[in-house]
């Protein structure tokens, strides 16, 4: 297991347990948890708190016949649901978004590539592929951005991020992540708003590339 130094903030783990995170962020949190025993322990503690609240909940009367109808269908085979296991560098939650297939990369120039995994009201998630030594274009953030490293590593003004590490970006973070020497850096990035690039050209290209 990789040595992880950048974790998910605890309040976000609580929100993940409760299911109040937007889907794109939940994808990053579940992926980080797939590497990180510490954060799984924190999740376990929040689940325990949730369980205690559930046990303390007021009972509501059930419709008559509900129990009988559940008992009657216990052995009815459930609709099979695909299960996506971790594969290669991609944890299960990413494989689920890829529906079990390989990424389909679209080039963004300078060797940088992306594969959009999810777009919805609550934000978007994508895979980013950054060759060693290459910078992700300088950008500032409109909202919150989570970036989880799946392969290689990157460094920016705030530190070095290796496999399993997650960087939390917000309005205040203006940074230039550069992929470190070695394997190309592959990240899972989720935002709750479109990224703005600081340089003019990329900003014009933004609608085109949906970054």
């Amino acid at each position: 297991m990789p040595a992880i130094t950048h974790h998910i903030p605890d309040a976000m783990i609580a929100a993940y347990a409760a299911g109040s995170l937007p889907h794109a962020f939940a994808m990053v949190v579940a992926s980080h948890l797939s590497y990180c025993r510490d954060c799984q322990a924190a999740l376990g503690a929040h689940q325990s708190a949730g369980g205690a609240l559930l046990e303390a909940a007021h009972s509501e009367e059930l419709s008559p016949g509900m129990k009988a109808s559940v008992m009657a269908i216990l052995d009815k085979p459930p609709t099979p649901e695909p299960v996506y296991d971790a594969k290669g560098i991609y944890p299960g939650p990413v494989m689920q978004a890829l529906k079990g297939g390989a990424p389909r990369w679209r080039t963004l120039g300078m060797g940088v590539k992306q594969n959009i995994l999810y777009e919805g009201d609550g934000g978007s998630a994508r895979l980013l592929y950054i060759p060693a030594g290459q910078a992700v274009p300088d950008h500032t953030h409109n909202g919150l951005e989570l970036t989880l490293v799946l392969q290689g590593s990157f460094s920016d003004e705030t530190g070095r991020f290796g496999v399993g590490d997650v960087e939390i970006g917000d309005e205040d973070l203006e940074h230039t992540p550069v992929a470190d020497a070695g394997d190309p850096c592959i990240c899972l990035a989720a935002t709750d708003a479109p990224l703005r690039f600081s340089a003019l050209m990329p900003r014009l290209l933004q609608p085109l590339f949906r970054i």
Partner: protein
Amino acid sequence: MVTVNLDKPPGRKALHGVSPGATAAVSNGKAFSQLTIWLLAIRDQRDRAAFGALFDHLAPRLKGFVMRSGASSALAEEIVQDVMLTIWRKASQFDPHKAQASAWIYQIARNRHIDIVRKEHRPVPDELSADPGLEPDASQILGLEQEAEQLKLAIQQLQPDQKEMIEKAYIGQLTHQEISSQTGLPLGTVKSRIRLGLGRLRKELKGLR
């Protein structure tokens, strides 16, 4: 003396002689919680009577819990039915060394609620390999259960407004920003196992009173 199968699921040894209402004892004389006993009987023996008893105990509470999030009675019952079926079908995944019964059920309830309401599959983490430092044994389960029991007491002793806020956070009515800024919920520094995390949560909850 009742013996309890402490193997990881799916258990190979059967759970002997446990029926709803029975108490499973372990060597030091302390007992597993009733929820755990039911779930183990369902997991290892596909025990319908145990499931029926679990239903009677749990389903009305689950309905109340789901309705606290603003769901109608009809939607709540749809979710409760789905959760109860999921418990039956996924019982093989229940491992009392890893999670207390109520914590395991809580996560199923939240996942099913979200899947049903948003019609999308919630991403769930991969299982991590067993922690080499943790040898599964009964005391580990009892430790988790004792902590959960104390946590339940701590929550019962909260002021109504504090309890309401924490409840809101755990039924998905607060965003993560609201959770961090309003509830000041604990565990920010949890870097250890669930048991330690729980201990800290309990302490923090005490501090909230």
